[in-house]
């Protein structure tokens, strides 16, 4: 699938800049996204299950996540993304159980 990086994603990348393991895991997830054919494949792919794919609900409906690392600075690290027109938009890297992402969305 096509991948686009939002400014939110680029700005939050600093959370994992020095976390070698998380960067490795993120790298594998990005490879995975690149190599699936469409969103339906992504949803149902065995490796999506392995990488902790979940469609988020409630006030984060429309967003999805992959798990990157259990040991972030402030908690579990998650890659938050959205999907439209055959493109995966990398939205944010969250380490505060989405609170940081919600805060970021309110500011934008």
């Amino acid at each position, binding site marked *: *699938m*096509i*991948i*686009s*990086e939002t400014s939110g*994603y*680029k*700005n*939050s*990348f*600093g959370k994992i*800049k020095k976390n070698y393991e998380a*960067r490795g895991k993120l*790298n*594998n997830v*990005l*490879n*995975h996204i*690149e*190599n*699936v*054919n469409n969103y339906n*494949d992504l949803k149902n*792919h*065995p*490796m999506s299950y*392995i*990488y902790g794919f979940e469609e988020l609900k409630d006030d984060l409906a429309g967003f999805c996540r992959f798990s990157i690392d259990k040991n972030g600075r402030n908690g579990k690290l998650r890659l938050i993304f959205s999907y439209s027109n055959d493109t995966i938009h990398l939205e944010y890297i969250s380490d505060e159980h989405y609170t940081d992402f919600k805060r970021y969305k309110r500011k934008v």
Partner: protein
Amino acid sequence: MKVIYMTHVSFAVVLKDYLNENNISNKEFAARIGITPKHLIDILSGEVELSTSIIQSISVVTNIPVDYIIKFEENHRMENEIEKFLNEKNISLTQYLNKFSYRELLKNKWIQFVHVDDKMTTLMDILKYLRVSKPDILYKLDKNILYKSKNDKPELLMIWLERCYRIAKDQKVAAYNKDNIELIVDYINTCAKNGEFSEKDLIKTFNKYGIKLVIQEDLPGSKIRGAFKVNKDTPSIYITYKHKRIADIYFALLHELAHCKSDFNQAKASSMVSYDDGNCEDKADKQALNWMVDDKYYQDIISKSFYDIDNENKYPKCFILYRLALDKRIEFSNEYYQLYNYVIDSNDLK
């Protein structure tokens, strides 16, 4: 914050994640896919590549699609080849991407880029568009191009040729007959006489007479003017919008048509490329100019002390003025040159 470029890992890396998360031992997995544990360890450590039969077995056992595994392996291999190439040439990824005017490619959308923010993936997309599995192959293909310019930039040329090839592929043409070339020349002369230029109608006419035609903007920094090639007995002419004046574009077309007439067999083996850098291809130029205005008629004009272009009826005025300017008998700023060899409206260009 600058994001670090992603690395295209082999499928072995992903398989390790699969086995770890599912708590499957190497011994069990090796047994299920029909190989020895040692062989699996070699695969997981990157010592050996995946064979087709092992990929298929893995797909059956894990329910991971075969094409997904193949893409991983192909991307990983391509990235290794690119890194090897860049090291050998002592050039950075960005420097190499710039040779393809990649920023322009991001704008013009010739290529669908998978991950525009990642330069390695961007370069891989360019190579895939060019239908090569590694950069070295490009320069071997480049050896098949005739009439090279000292100003040529093979990367820009290959991208443009590929773009034209992909557009030409969709054109349906009648069987080619060399005798029809004169009919095309007559058509061009009639259009030029009437001061007409329609890309759509030109393509239709060329196709009707068995020739594929593509008029396609080239990339900034290239001096390509046109190209002629033959695929399975069907000739293809590609020209750029290098010059936007009516006679200049028709001259570029007639030049390539001249190649079609005299170099058909040679063009089966090689692409013939023309550049706008002063290097003449005399034979094709002479034929094109003669088609535009008969040489004898032109000699009569230049031998006269006075010539009234406004009363010219036999040949297109723009063609006569084009030849006069080319021979430096008039300036390009000449009012008649500017009037009759007008700049084509961008609406007439696709």
